[in-house]
């Protein structure tokens, strides 16, 4: 069977395997998680011993991927958009070193912020690092562009970014598989200095990177991924990037539109191609899922005679994901007023599960903090962030992974005492450990609560690097033994837990409270699978 129904994410996983992948490196993050999970579950990948274990964070993943590429093999690195902020140092410098074996970096953006802190558009990172970016519109294209991404990466010896968005990542369609190919053998880079970015070498590498840009533009034209689709009605020309192309086709089919279309799935985009397109139409509507990246480069800052419409001039909203209805409005297709959602329908936000250990931890913390008043709990990203919602109203910040510990430190430095950090186990090993070291070095009075449910819960329960290691890690970082406290977050221990927190809040130094109890979701899955094995 060569046709499969796959999520966009899964199509990328299969595409990478069929392209001769030797290892995937990733940290979970919606909407990118299912790429790595697919490879982890694949029998074929297991037989081939393709590396598929989770990394501690996106930076370690990116660097390990680069190491595998150094060794001549093909590596895939996957993350959500904000993960690329964490991996940015490695990612941008990988553009400078270039690669040996093919290296494809998948970044999944989340416009409309379904499960994210922001909706940053990763194509800017592609532009910033001057590496090619591919942006598929369909699951089949996601499959094929992954393969093409490896080819492109090996042809130009550069990392290639594959940028997807939520609606492709998490939408299923049937995908046709192509013949698969062998993995690369281990092969050292032909120039053993290629990866040494000392200034003298880095300057050379940078000139090389700059000089390939014209060829990369040309490549987008030759590959057919950027292509002109003729249309009779040149009163408007449509530039449709990635997923936005689907919405144009949907709307055009329904409303009988026939505009010339420039479909964009590869960056950098050839300036020649854009110029030719713009000249043959009266005005241009730019449809981009994410920020107006291409639109901005077309409009520039100078007044010109071309009419460019899109997210910048208000034809489309500046924020949020596109929808068929928004594209209809932008193209002047009349939309009948939709039915309204009856007023009695109430929001139903996500919530902590009944019986979750985070709840008992927050109950103990809340009571212990009562004498001090509100505003002193810095938290982080994970299920426990839902402690921000009623009835808990337990936290005052959620910024980026690891920020709880360091913000608590800064606030403590400023004089807020006690100052508390609440962080999940996986988030702690992702990027909380280094901040804790800062506090230890300065003996800053902070109370760090690691709410350890022994999994990466928010993203679906992936294995956590922290499991059974937290005490050793905190000891190793230099937290005093008497101030590494362990609590069992259960209602029946509430009183002793509250007392433990109260004691540590009073301590004038670094204390860590590890509140460990298994996530009830992973626990029930574990019990079920044990039962089915018996």
């Amino acid at each position, binding site marked *: 069977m060569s046709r499969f129904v796959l999520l966009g994410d899964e199509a990328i996983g299969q595409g990478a395997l069929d392209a001769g992948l030797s290892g995937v490196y990733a940290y979970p993050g919606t909407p990118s998680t299912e790429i790595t999970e697919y490879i982890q579950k694949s029998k074929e990948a297991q037989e081939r011993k393709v590396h598929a274990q989770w990394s501690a964070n996106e930076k370690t993943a990116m660097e390990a991927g680069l190491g595998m590429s150094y060794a001549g093999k093909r590596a895939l690195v996957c993350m959500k958009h904000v993960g690329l902020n964490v991996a940015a140092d490695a990612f941008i410098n990988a553009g400078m070193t270039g690669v040996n074996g093919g290296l494809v970096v998948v970044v999944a953006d989340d416009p409309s912020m379904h499960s994210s802190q922001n909706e940053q558009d990763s194509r800017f990172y592609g532009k910033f690092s001057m590496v090619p970016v591919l942006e598929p519109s369909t699951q089949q294209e996601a499959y094929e562009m992954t393969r093409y991404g490896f080819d492109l990466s090996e042809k130009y010896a550069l990392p290639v970014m594959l940028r997807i968005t939520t*609606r492709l990542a998490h939408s299923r*369609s049937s995908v046709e598989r192509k013949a698969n190919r062998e993995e690369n053998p281990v092969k050292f880079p032909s120039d053993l200095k290629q990866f040494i970015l000392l200034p003298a070498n880095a300057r050379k590498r940078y000139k090389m990177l700059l000089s390939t840009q014209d060829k990369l533009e040309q490549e987008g034209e030759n590959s057919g991924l950027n292509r002109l689709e003729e249309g009779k009605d040149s009163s408007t020309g449509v530039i449709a990037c990635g997923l936005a192309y689907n919405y144009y086709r949907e709307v055009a089919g329904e409303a009988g539109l026939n505009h010339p279309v420039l479909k964009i799935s590869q960056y950098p985009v050839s300036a020649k191609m854009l110029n030719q397109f713009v000249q043959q139409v009266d005005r241009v509507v730019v449809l981009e899922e994410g920020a107006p990246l291409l639109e901005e480069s077309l409009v520039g800052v100078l007044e010109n005679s071309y009419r460019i419409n899109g997210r910048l001039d208000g034809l489309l909203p500046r924020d949020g994901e596109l929808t068929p209805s928004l594209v209809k409005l932008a193209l002047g297709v009349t939309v009948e007023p*939709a039915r309204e959602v009856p007023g009695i*329908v109430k929001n*139903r936000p*996500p*919530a902590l599960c009944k019986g979750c250990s985070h709840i008992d931890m927050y109950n103990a913390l809340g009571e212990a903090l009562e004498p001090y008043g509100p505003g002193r709990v810095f938290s982080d990203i994970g299920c426990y962030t839902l402690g921000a919602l009623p009835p808990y109203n337990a936290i005052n910040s959620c910024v980026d992974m690891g920020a709880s510990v360091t913000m608590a430190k800064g606030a403590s430095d400023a004089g807020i005492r006690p100052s508390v950090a609440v962080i999940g186990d996986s988030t702690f090993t992702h990027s909380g450990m280094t901040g804790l070291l800062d506090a230890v070095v300065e003996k800053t009075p902070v109370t760090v609560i690691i709410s350890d449910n022994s999994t990466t819960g928010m993203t*679906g329960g992936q294995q956590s690097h922290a499991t059974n290691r937290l005490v050793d890690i905190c000891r190793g970082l230099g937290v005093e033994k008497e101030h590494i406290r362990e609590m069992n977050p259960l209602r029946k221990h509430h009183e002793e837990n509250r007392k433990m927190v109260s004691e540590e809040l009073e301590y004038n130094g670094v204390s860590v409270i590890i509140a460990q109890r298994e996530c009830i979701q992973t626990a029930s899955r574990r019990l079920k699978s044990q039962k089915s094995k018996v």
Partner: protein
Amino acid sequence: MKRDIILAGVGGQGILSIAAVIGMAAVESGLYLKQAEVHGMSQRGGAVQSHLRIADSPIASDLIPEGNCDMILSVEPMEALRYLPFLAKEGWVVTSSRTFKNIDDYPPEDDLFAEIRKLQNHVIIDAFAIAREIGSQKVSNIVMLGAASDYLGLTQESLEGALDTLFRRKGEDVVMLNIKALKAGKNGVKI
């Protein structure tokens, strides 16, 4: 042939299983499919939906345009109403009557059902009771699938085949229970 369906419910109620069954049946029947799902944060007890599109010609958009949806199939009555802007003029709302109250300001049930009954085409069935009667409340979602099955443009055999493929791993009993749920849902309503 073209069917645009929104599946609605609360995270954890099994709408992705309904989607998987329809999706597999559609593809096995040689139809085109696009199915956008919600993963991530909302799966923790929040509102979740899936846009499911099947057709005999290629489908462009992963999302159903507003006003085009042929059916909202919901396992929870308030969730059925959340997606009304998508429903076509002649569209159907097929919903379970079983409420899921995990918020403080959940509306009074009478108001809720009155709102659903205002719609020209609606079916309200007690999928929970039917599921419990045939053996397990866990198959409420498949009872709902059964309730909608005559309208999907898919054969009964293809749906049963998909249930068999998807649940075989869990054993013959589970497959049989799900097929029973499908039939019970189908017999429970006639649209």
